[in-house]
């Protein structure tokens, strides 16, 4: 019992310790998480930028720059921690088109694909009005007053942006790299977004970023340095109404002198464009370069262009300013390949921005024929394996049952995105169909060159009954079984311990009552025998001794009968102490004038046997004392069943006695010992001439009740099982 108590205390101490340690750890993490991951720096140099998460766009790492090859509105690339609060973000950026804008996102949360689908702030350089722009996005856009950028915002020009966020203020410094063209602004919003990630963002333009760094040292000084250049802070105010906006903003004039917005006119060419499909039927040898016109479908690892007749690969060409969806005119030397033609030494002329064409949906078997070489297609297959190659190349091995093929993504920002695709999932992939051995390694008939992770859709997840899942399930079931067995053994131990404890108590009880009674009877009989041996029989004395012995036997018999009745399920006394007290009182008071009343308050509840038995003996002793010694006419026994306790009152209106005086009897001490054995409180309220009240309060601990209920439950289930077994004939007695 001591050991159990000690281990219980140790468990509580360990629990408190663990909770305290967890609280400390949580507080520590809470304190440091605004700084975790800082300083952050990504020079985009090693081609392994796994820290970024794209939301739209076609992102590509090359030559130390991160480029978005799409003119999608609001393409985002995010990094960092949502717990970052005050920090400085710096980056160089370049806009590759005459329109659109590009910049940095700060304190970003709840991002999704969409133009303003994030909750945070954006700072950018906008070419349409040559301004430094700042505003608040929350699935909508609320802009501060734009600041004119000296020298304008021009394409193919590098700018440096420094964004300082502190409290609810954002300071921005922008400068054209290598010049003195600079602009500053400070933006303030009450009830601002307090923390969030950083990001790169572009709107309607192809753009590049480099040298991205984030740090939290010296933020106040950096903000103060920017504030020195700013006379008035701006707030999120536009566009609320048209009149207010247009009274303070300007838009491009589109005048012819503004070369920036003059569209490139189509000039007559020496070699007019021809359909791309006709490149496969050119007479050999080719004596002059050929021209084609089409839409860019891929820029990395190679440029692909497609018109309504098909696609073509273009090699040895600078693609940095090209974006997916651009309409271009290409003039180059055709190089015939087994299934298609490659244009080499090509000259690319950007014509228009267009919507990328939708993919042609084909089967893997059709793709393997080579008819769709260099076309933008869509097909599906089961994922077999994913390889993470050097240079941020990810290869997905797929199989549709008839053909095995590969899907290849080159130069994307994050390999982590592909870990969500499980083997044996049915995937739909969109990309350029190629039969080039550089990509197929001659192991599969064709490969698809994907633009980004967005080109993969999971149609059906992996089957549930994979070998790994089966092993996992088996382990879980085994663990569950072990836990159940452990619990079962523990409950059995508790039950056995309870039985042994009860047996020990009964042994002591028998020793205290039956054995002592028999010893008393034996003593009386021995006295009779000695008296008869030592001389003539003294019949009056012998009669007296025999009467005492008979009385002892009768009392012992009755006590034993009641005790057994108390413990015997099915007897009226079992579980209902009031019946036991009534029977006990009527026996004791038999033949006398004392009237005993037994009452109860509250519903009868199942009590532990030990409690029932002990209470009964205390009550019986108290009733006996009252009838025999109190000189009372009435004895009142009252049981109260409370929620957390059982209270027994035995009250007489007799002579009483001095509490704690000489009259403190052996019976009273015995009652106190019994009460202590079940952690009950026993109070004696008495005074000479004022009667006596014995009060016993038994607290009911939940653990005791639980243990008892478990024990009862076990008994019930055992009985059920036993009966079932009997019915089925399994039990052989």
């Amino acid at each position: 019992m001591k050991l159990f108590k000690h281990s219980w205390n140790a468990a509580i101490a360990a629990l408190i310790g663990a909770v305290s340690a967890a609280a400390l750890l949580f507080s520590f993490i809470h304190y440091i998480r605004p700084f975790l991951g800082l300083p952050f720096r990504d020079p985009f140099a090693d081609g392994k930028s796994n820290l970024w998460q794209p939301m739209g766009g076609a992102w590509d790492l090359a030559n130390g720059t991160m480029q978005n090859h799409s003119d999608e509105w609001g393409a985002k690339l995010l990094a960092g921690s949502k717990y970052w609060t005050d920090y400085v973000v710096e980056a160089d950026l370049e806009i590759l088109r005459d329109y659109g804008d590009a910049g940095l996102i700060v304190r970003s949360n709840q991002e999704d694909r969409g133009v303003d689908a994030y909750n945070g702030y954006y700072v950018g350089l906008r070419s349409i009005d040559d301004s430094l722009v700042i505003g608040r996005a929350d699935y909508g856009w609320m802009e501060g007053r734009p600041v004119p950028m000296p020298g304008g915002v021009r394409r193919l020009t590098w700018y440096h942006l420094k964004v300082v966020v502190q409290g609810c203020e954002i300071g921005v410094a922008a400068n054209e790299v290598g010049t003195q063209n600079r602009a500053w602004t400070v933006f303030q919003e009450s009830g601002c977004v307090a923390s969030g990630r950083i990001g790169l963002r572009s709107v309607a333009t192809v753009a590049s970023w480099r040298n991205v760094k984030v740090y939290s040292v010296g933020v106040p000084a950096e903000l103060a340095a920017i504030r020195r250049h700013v006379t008035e802070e701006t707030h999120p105010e536009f566009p609320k109404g048209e009149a207010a906006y247009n009274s303070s903003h300007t838009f491009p004039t589109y005048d012819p002198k503004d070369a920036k917005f003059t569209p490139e006119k189509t000039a007559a060419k020496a070699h007019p464009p021809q359909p791309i499909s006709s490149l496969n039927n050119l007479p050999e040898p080719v004596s002059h370069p050929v021209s084609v016109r089409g839409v860019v479908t891929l820029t990395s690892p190679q440029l692909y262009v497609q018109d309504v007749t098909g696609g073509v690969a273009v090699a040895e060409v600078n693609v940095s300013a090209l974006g997916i969806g651009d309409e271009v005119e290409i003039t180059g030397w055709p190089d015939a390949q087994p299934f298609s033609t490659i244009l080499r030494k090509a000259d690319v002329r950007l014509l228009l921005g267009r919507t990328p064409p939708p993919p042609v949906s084909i089967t893997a078997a059709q793709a393997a024929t080579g008819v769709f070489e260099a076309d933008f297609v869509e097909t599906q297959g089961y994922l077999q394996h994913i390889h993470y190659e050097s240079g941020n190349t990810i290869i997905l091995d797929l199989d549709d049952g008839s053909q095995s093929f590969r899907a290849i993504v080159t130069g994307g920002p994050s390999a982590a995105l592909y870990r969500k695709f499980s083997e044996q999932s049915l995937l739909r992939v969109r990309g350029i169909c190629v039969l080039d051995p550089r990509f197929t390694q001659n192991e599969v008939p064709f490969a698809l060159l994907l633009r980004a992770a967005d080109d993969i859709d999971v149609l059906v997840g992996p089957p549930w009954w994979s070998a790994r899942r089966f092993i996992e399930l088996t382990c879980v079931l085994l663990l569950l079984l072990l836990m159940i067995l452990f619990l079962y053994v523990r409950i059995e131990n508790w039950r056995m311990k309870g039985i042994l404890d009860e047996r020990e108590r009964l042994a002591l009880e028998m020793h205290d009552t039956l054995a002592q009674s028999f010893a008393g009877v034996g003593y009386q009989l021995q006295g009779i025998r000695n008296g008869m041996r030592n001389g003539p029989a003294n019949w009056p004395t012998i009669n007296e001794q025999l009467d005492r012995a008979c009385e002892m036997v009768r009392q012992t018999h009755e006590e034993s009968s009641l005790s057994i009745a108390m413990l015997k399920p099915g007897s009226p006394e079992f579980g209902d102490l009031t019946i036991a007290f009534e029977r006990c009182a009527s026996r004791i008071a038999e033949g006398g004038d004392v009237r005993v009343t037994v009452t109860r308050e509250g519903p009868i509840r199942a009590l532990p046997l030990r409690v029932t038995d002990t209470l009964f003996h205390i009550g019986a002793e108290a009733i006996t004392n009252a009838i025999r010694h109190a000189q009372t006419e009435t004895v009142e026994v009252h049981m109260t069943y409370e929620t957390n306790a059982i209270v027994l009152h035995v009250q007489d209106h007799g002579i009483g006695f001095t509490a704690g005086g000489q009259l403190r009897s052996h019976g009273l001490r015995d009652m106190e010992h019994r009460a202590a054995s079940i952690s009950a409180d026993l109070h004696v309220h008495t005074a000479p001439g004022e009667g006596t009240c014995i009060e016993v309060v038994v607290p009911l601990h939940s653990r005791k009740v639980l243990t008892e209920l478990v024990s009862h439950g076990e008994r019930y289930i055992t009985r059920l099982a036993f009966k079932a077994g009997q019915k089925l004939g399994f039990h052989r007695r």
Partner: protein
Amino acid sequence: MLITAVRLGKRLAICSLSAGTLLLASGCARAHPHTVAVIPEMTAQELWEAEHAGVASAALGTNWEIYWNGPGRKDDVARQIELVEAAIAQRDGGLILSPDHALALNTLVRRAVAQGIPTVIVGSHLSISPNPKLAYILNDDEETGRLAADRAGETLHGMGDVALIGSEPGIASTFLRTTAFRHRLSERYPSIHIVNELPGSGAFDEGLLGAQQILERYPKLDAIVALDTVATRASFSALKSHQRNNEVKLIACDQALDLLYYLRKGEIDSIIVENTFEMGYRAMKLINAGQRGESILGNQLLPPTMVTRENVDRPDVQRMLSMDWRPTQ
């Protein structure tokens, strides 16, 4: 042994049942009954930001949470389909949709209605009849076409050549505008001729090239009617680059901040404005009624307004142009 087995079996059954219930509960998607998904034709465009403002204004003081998101381009139908699918999967409490295509969204809208999601179609019509869970709040596109024809008749004094730019196949609104424009011209202004109808593609560059070719081919063109904002920008840019913005009237459809800026400068003759603010406002009120179990059956047509330099600052016009999606009262 048998007793032990029965005991174990009984406990295992209870444990399995509990674990199964837990798994089932965790596997179910979480519903968003207080979120209304508002999916415009495209975001970051003043025409639709005004709808955003109208929805936000109607939602003030309610417990609705607005999820506003849409494609970045009008022709990105696939993205709009994704967003509607997500709204249905999340069992949003309401859907306000401005479809990018007359047919591609039909199945999803039927699915949303079948799931009991109150749905309001704003802007373009779909071929699904209104029902207690589906309502339409549309711009009166035929009236837009008629207003454009009347303006052409007025400015050209009933005589001249016009080009019609931006009619997009698959977009019911531009088809209705074109038809009504043609009909009104033949009915009231027979001396005004449509010399060219250039289809739109949603791409500025393509529209610009087409508008330039029209200006080169028709040196005596009197007016251009541009049927949406992309066509208007392309036409305006072409007129400026050919320095013909003083002689060719540009009558535009649908509002944008830059176009209203040019209108104020007198470089655009007029803009026929859709009341998307009111559409958003009414749509949100209908969703609210739908959530209370009321029928939202209906087909409301809101009249467009002809905006010129003379009336652009009128309070009712400015209210139509409000883009305040963070209203405070």
